């Protein structure tokens, strides 16, 4: 019975100055092969200058069911936004 190649998540920086972005996933026996495969699968047309590969099982993701408690508290903190503060119209550059 063969052992399955694990799943890897692929992150690509499209050019210097930009962050690595999630591009998709693929199967590979190890990290080196994941990098090689990622190059062939996700950067055939110069889409990247740097690749990160992370084995999918090492990613811990938040659960959308908890989105309420995780993200809703930010919604009533309007004072974190500049528009919350009233200034006279004459004030420039602020």
């Amino acid at each position: 019975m063969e052992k399955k190649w694990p799943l890897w998540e692929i992150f690509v920086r499209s050019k210097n100055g930009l962050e690595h972005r999630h591009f998709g996933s693929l199967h590979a026996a190890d990290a080196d092969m994941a990098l090689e495969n990622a190059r062939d699968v996700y950067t055939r047309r110069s889409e990247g200058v740097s690749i990160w590969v992370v084995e999918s099982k090492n990613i811990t993701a938040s659960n959308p069911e908890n989105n309420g408690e995780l993200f809703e508290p930010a919604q009533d903190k309007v004072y974190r936004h500049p528009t919350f503060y009233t200034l006279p119209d004459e004030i420039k550059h602020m």
Partner: protein
Amino acid sequence: MSDAQLKNLEEIFEQRIANDEKIEPKDWMPEKYRKTHIRQISQHAHSEIVGMLPEGNWITRAPSLRRKVALLAKVQDEAGHGLYLYSACETLGISRDELYEQLHSGKAKYSSIFNYPTVTWADMGAIGWLVDGAAIINQVPLCNTSYGPYARAMIRVCKEESFHQRQGFEIMMTLCNGTEAQKQMAQDALNRWWWPSLMMLGPVDAESVHTEQSMKWKLKRKTNDELRQQFIDQTVPQADILGLTVPDPDLKWNEETGHYDFGEINWDEFWQVVKGHGPCNKERMNARVGAWEKGTWVRDAAMAYAEKQQNKKENPAKAV
């Protein structure tokens, strides 16, 4: 979960899609949504992978280096499309091996067009022009579908398809501007690929069972018949430019509707091919299953090597 709770969740879910929100892998979704998406995305992935076979047939015999690099690049793109789609499908909780198993056992379908043989070089032109052309018409609306990973995969696929169609049309154009024999070869390829390309856009609306649900989930934006009409309307003028005749005696511009009228499609042939009785169904599956089985030792060796490297890293002392 009670029936009422489930119904409530389903309503919220449908509302999110109606509001153009995307569904992501860990979101709650109705079982039917998950199953339908696994079926459609995997069928799509299988089509990309099996679709490499008819064209792979001509790589070694491409008439020039220019044609060979283009065909190689196109076939490699199709492998990439399959891989984007398989990984999108896996986010729905099915493994790659299960997906392959469904293809190899015949449980899952792939596009019936790839069960036709590629007998001349002109078929490489006709496939790029017509088959990729029809695929583009099918795929562009999917860039906006409701399931996030599928939509993102489709955006990537659509960016790459345009080259496929153009290289095919260029092959046709070169043949049509060549000798009489070359032009005849192009005409013969059009004759053989025209009707299967129309069938590729799916059964007529009256017989297409999933249309309504698929529209709601944005797996479909237009019906099969609408897509087919769009394909015919845009392709016939291209055939005119090539100086080729579309093999349909009933094909006629209709001033009133602003569309081409066209002849009866042989749906018996379509269903025969879908059911496994096309000219190349067996050959395609043998090639696919054969490649998978003959590759077993390579996959095993890669895994064994990876484990050995890992052990060396963890216990450098023990390494010999």
